[in-house]
C-alpha cells in the first residue's frame, strides 16, 4: 500500500515531523527525530529514483482529484534526481548538526531550530516534486520563510542584516513569480504544468505570455542568485550557522535551478525560448558572472565568504548549460547541479569543522591548522580539487559535459571562460590550502579572540559526514551511471523534440 503513496510521503513526512519536533523538550529528541525522518525520506527518494530511472513518470493525484483540476505530484527522472540530492544532503547534514548546533545555537532554541529545518526541508522537496505551479509557490515560501529564520540564528549580528536582506530580495523574487503565474492563469485558465505546456503553444505570440515569462525568470533568477541578482547570497552564507550554510548552499539554489529547467523546458518549451533572447542573455550573464565572482572569491578574507562567491560562480556554470540549450547542455546542468551539491556540501562541512574548533572562519586565523587537523585538511583538498574540476573527481565530469556542449554548438568563447574559471578556482582553492598547510602556525594564540581555540582534529561526528560527501565526490568522478545516466533520461523527457 505504502509504495503507491511514496511520492507524497517524501513531502509529508518532514511536514508531520516539524510540528512534533517543535513541541518536544530541548535535548537530543528533536535531533533524533529529524535525523530519522531525513534518512527515511532519503530511502524513499532512492526508491522513487529507481522507479523512474527507466524514463517512466509517476503521477500522484492529491485528494483523488484528477489533474488538471486537482494538485498533481509528478515525478520523472529530473526531479527524482533533485529530490535525491536534497534528501541525501539533509541525511548527512543532520548527523553533523548535533555537535555543531550544540555549539552555535542557544539550548532553548534547539527544538524550534530543528522544526524550522524540517519545514525548510519540506519546502524544498515540495518545490521539487509538485506538478502544480501555484503549489510550487506555496512550497517556495515555506522553504524561504524557514530559511530566513534559520539564517538569522547566526552568532554575529550581521546574520540579522543578512537575513533581512535575503527576506526583501526573496520576497520580491517570489512575488514576481506569482505575478507571472497569475498572468499565465489569466491567459490559459490552468495551473497544472503539463496542462500549461499543452495550452501555451497556441499563445506563443501573445504579449502577456512573454510578460509572464519575464516575471517568472527574474523572480527565480533572484532565488537562485544568478549574477547580478546574487547580492543576498554571500552575506547569508557567511553569517548563517554552519549547518544552515551547508544545507542551503548544497540544496536551495539547486532546487531553484531545477525550477528554471522545469519552467523553461517543460512549461514553456524550448521553441518559445529560441524566439526570445533568453538563451543569449543567460550566456552573457553567466560568462560575466563566472569570471567576476571567481575574482571576488580570490580576494575574500573569510573562508565561508570565499566559498559563497565560488557558489555564485558555479551557479553560472549550471545556467550556462541551460543557455546553451542543447541536450548535452542540459545534461551538464543536471549533472553539475548534483555534483556541486556534493562538493560544496563537503567544503562547507570541512570549513565548519575548523570553525567548530577555532571559533572563526577568517582565513588568517587558520594558519598552519592543516598539520593539526589532517583529516579536515584532506577533505578540503579533495573538495577543492573537485571544485576545480580535476579528473577523477565529480567536478571534472560536469565540466567535461559543459565543455562538450559548448564545443558542439561552437561557442569557443564559452569553452575559454569555463577553462579560465577553473584556473581562477585553482587560485582560490590554493589560497585556502596554502594558509592551512604552508603558513607557519601562529602559536601566540591571540589571533582568535574567544577562548574556544583548540588546535586538534575535529570530533568524529563532524568528520564522518564530511568524509561521506568527500568519498561521494570521488565515487561520482569515476562512476557516472547514476548522475549522467539519470540526467540523460531526464533530458529525453525535458526535450522531446531532440530525440
Amino acid at each position: 500500500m505504502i509504495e503507491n503513496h511514496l511520492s507524497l510521503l517524501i513531502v509529508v513526512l518532514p511536514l508531520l515531523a516539524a510540528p512534533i519536533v517543535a513541541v518536544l523538550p530541548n535535548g537530543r529528541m528533536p535531533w533524533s527525530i529529524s535525523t530519522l525522518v531525513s534518512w527515511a525520506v532519503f530511502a524513499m527518494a532512492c526508491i522513487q529514483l529507481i522507479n523512474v530511472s527507466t524514463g517512466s513518470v509517476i503521477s500522484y493525484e492529491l485528494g483523488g482529484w484528477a489533474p488538471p483540476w486537482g494538485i498533481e505530484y509528478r515525478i520523472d527522472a529530473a526531479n527524482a534526481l533533485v529530490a535525491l540530492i536534497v534528501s541525501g544532503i539533509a541525511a548527512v547534514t543532520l548527523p553533523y548538526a548535533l555537535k555543531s548546533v550544540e555549539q552555535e545555537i542557544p539550548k532553548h532554541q534547539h527544538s524550534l531550530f530543528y522544526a524550522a529545518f524540517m519545514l525548510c526541508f519540506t519546502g524544498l522537496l515540495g518545490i521539487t516534486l509538485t506538478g502544480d505551479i501555484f503549489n510550487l509557490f506555496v512550497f517556495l515560501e515555506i522553504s524561504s520563510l524557514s530559511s530566513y529564520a534559520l539564517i538569522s540564528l547566526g552568532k554575529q549580528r550581521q546574520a540579522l542584516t543578512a537575513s533581512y536582506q535575503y527576506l526583501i530580495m526573496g520576497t520580491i523574487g517570489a512575488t514576481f513569480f506569482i505575478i507571472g503565474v497569475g498572468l499565465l492563469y489569466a491567459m490559459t485558465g490552468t495551473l497544472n504544468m503539463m496542462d500549461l505546456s499543452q495550452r501555451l503553444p497556441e499563445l506563443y505570440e501573445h504579449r502577456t505570455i512573454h510578460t509572464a515569462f519575464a516575471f517568472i525568470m527574474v523572480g527565480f533568477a533572484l532565488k537562485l542568485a544568478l549574477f547580478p541578482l546574487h547580492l543576498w547570497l554571500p552575506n547569508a552564507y557567511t553569517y548563517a550557522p554552519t549547518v544552515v550554510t551547508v544545507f542551503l548552499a548544497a540544496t536551495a539554489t539547486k532546487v531553484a535551478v531545477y525550477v528554471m529547467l522545469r519552467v523553461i523546458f517543460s512549461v514553456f518549451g524550448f521553441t518559445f525560448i529560441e524566439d526570445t533572447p533568453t538563451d543569449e542573455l543567460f550566456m552573457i550573464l553567466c560568462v560575466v558572472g563566472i569570471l567576476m565572482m571567481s575574482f571576488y572569491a580570490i580576494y575574500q578574507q573569510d573562508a565561508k565568504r570565499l566559498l559563497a562567491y565560488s557558489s555564485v560562480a558555479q551557479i553560472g556554470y549550471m545556467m550556462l548549460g541551460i543557455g546553451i540549450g542543447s541536450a548535452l547542455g542540459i545534461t551538464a546542468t543536471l549533472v553539475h547541479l548534483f555534483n556541486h551539491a556534493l562538493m560544496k556540501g563537503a567544503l562547507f562541512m570541512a570549513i565548519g569543522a575548523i570553525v567548530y574548533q577555532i571559533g572563526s572562519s577568517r582565513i588568517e586565523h587558520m594558519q598552519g591548522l592543516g598539520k593539526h587537523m589532517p583529516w579536515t585538511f584532506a577533505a578540503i583538498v579533495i573538495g577543492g580539487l573537485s571544485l576545480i574540476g580535476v579528473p577523477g573527481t565529480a567536478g571534472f565530469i560536469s565540466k567535461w559535459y559543459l565543455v562538450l556542449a559548448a564545443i558542439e554548438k561552437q561557442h569557443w568563447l564559452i569553452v575559454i571562460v569555463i577553462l579560465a574559471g577553473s584556473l581562477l578556482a585553482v587560485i582560490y582553492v590554493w589560497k585556502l590550502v596554502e594558509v592551512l598547510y604552508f603558513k607557519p602556525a601562529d602559536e601566540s594564540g591571540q589571533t582568535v579572540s574567544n577562548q574556544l581555540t583548540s588546535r586538534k582534529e575535529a570530533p568524529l561526528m563532524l568528520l564522518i559526514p564530511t568524509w561521506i560527501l568527500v568519498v561521494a565526490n570521488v565515487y561520482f568522478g569515476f562512476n557516472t551511471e547514476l548522475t549522467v545516466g539519470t540526467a540523460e533520461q531526464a533530458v529525453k523527457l525535458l526535450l522531446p523534440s531532440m530525440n
Partner: protein
Amino acid sequence: MKHNLILRVVSKFLIPLIFLFALYVQFHGDFGPGGGFQAGVIFSAAIILYALVFGVDSAKQVIPPSILLFLASLGVLIYAGTGVASLMMGGNYLEYGVLASTQLAGQHIGILLIELGVGITVMAVMLIMFFAFAERGRQQEDKKS
C-alpha cells in the same frame, strides 16, 4: 487603558459576540463564505482586543503562551493527520471521500477537520506573534528602568 470605562464595557459586550462570530465562520465554512483562516483571525482578534483593553498579563491568563505553541502544532497535525487518515482508509492523501461510508459524508467530515486544523493554527500563530511583539517592547523598558 484600565481607567477607560466605555472601552471596558463595550469590549466586554463585544468579545463574546466576536467569539461567536468566529465559531460561525469556522463551522459554516463548508456551506458559505468562511473557513479556518478567517475564523482563526477573528478568534484571535477577540483575544487581542481583550489584551489591548485589560492588559497583556490578563490576556496571558486567558491563554498561556506555553499552550499556544502546542495549539499551533496541533492544528498542523490535525491537517496532516486527516491526510494520513485518508491514506489509511485506502484513498489518496487528503481524499476526504473515503473518511465515511458515503462520498458526501466523507467530504463533509474531511473539510470540517481540515478547517478546524487551519483555524486552530492560525489563531495560535496570530496570538504568538502578538505576544512576541508586545512582550519585546516591555522587556526593553524593564531593562531601561
